[in-house]
């Protein structure tokens, strides 16, 4: 029993390691309950017409998904971090040919249109989620959030918060490449 005096030190080391690991975890980042689940069934109208013009964005429903790998991006003109991620979305759509669908959450039609006009429109189709119900079906708790949906229409990944350059090169591009066109 000569090693017994080491016991307190060993317990301390174990607790220290557990705390160190705990500190590096981001408590704000929550796992999605929907990973590897089929995307929810939904039907969203386009961004409403203003001043007698045409509606914008074409609307977005679950029928749009499942034809190939796609990103689903929840955005709004009132969302400040959305502006930070917008250049990355533009680059994904323009330079890498990734299909992005937009859920425009609780936005005013005129604001949403002005935003897309000023910053560019990377979306293949946009649906307006005026009461936030479809966002709840997707398990969204903050804007922006982005989902990777595979060719079978299953949710494979969720990104919470703005997509930065490093998320693009580190996660999203390798993932969309791996899942196929």
């Amino acid at each position, binding site marked *: 029993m000569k090693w017994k005096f080491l016991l307190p030190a060993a317990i301390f080391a174990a607790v220290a390691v557990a705390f160190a690991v705990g500190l590096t975890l981001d408590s704000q980042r*929550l796992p999605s309950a929907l990973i590897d689940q089929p995307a929810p069934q939904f039907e969203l109208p386009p961004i409403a017409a203003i001043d007698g013009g045409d509606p914008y964005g074409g609307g977005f429903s679950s029928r749009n998904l499942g034809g190939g790998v796609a990103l689903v991006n929840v955005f709004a003109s009132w969302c400040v971090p959305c502006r930070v991620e917008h250049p990355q979305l533009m680059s994904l759509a323009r330079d890498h040919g990734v299909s992005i669908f937009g859920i425009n959450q609780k936005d005013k039609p005129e604001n949403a249109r002005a935003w897309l006009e000023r910053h560019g429109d990377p979306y293949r189709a946009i649906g307006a989620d005026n009461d936030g119900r479809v966002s709840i079906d997707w398990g969204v708790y903050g804007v922006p959030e982005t989902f990777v949906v595979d060719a079978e229409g299953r949710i494979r990944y969720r990104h919470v918060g703005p997509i930065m350059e490093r998320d693009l090169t580190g996660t999203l591009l390798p993932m969309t490449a791996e899942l196929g066109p």
Partner: protein
Amino acid sequence: MRAWAVIFLSVLVLASGTQRAGAVEPSEVLSDPALEERAREISQGLRCLVCQNQTIDDSNAGLAKDLRILVRERLMAGDSDQEVMAFITDRYGDFVLLKPPLKTGTLLLWFGPGAILLLGAGALARFYANRRRQGSAGDGGAAKPLSETEKKRLQSLLKNGGEKGNNP
């Protein structure tokens, strides 16, 4: 002193009689008081995901309000409490539940503290059992009698208030 006790008790009685107000807005409240009571109870068990240490019943966040209304709609549609909870956890996972469910992944969470307490009590019991055994065996520890020289030294200490040179 007695006045303070009276004030304290009356505050307690008053506080226990009133329902906590929460963040529920008058327009959200259901006309059926029994359903509303169930909605409040469910809401108080659901975490607001935006401000993570509040319930959706307490939070003013937009998502919390949407979820409160959703809970009430499900109840109006005839869902049981369990069905409403399942509807929310299907979308947001077990993390929205303020009381975590008992399953293999949460065993450590539920029983960890009790296990550590038992471990500590066991170690303490062993420590005392060892000490008692050593004491009664007379081969060491507290029960060992003083030797002749030790007795002499003790006597001189008691008499003189200490050995010369050690006094301050």
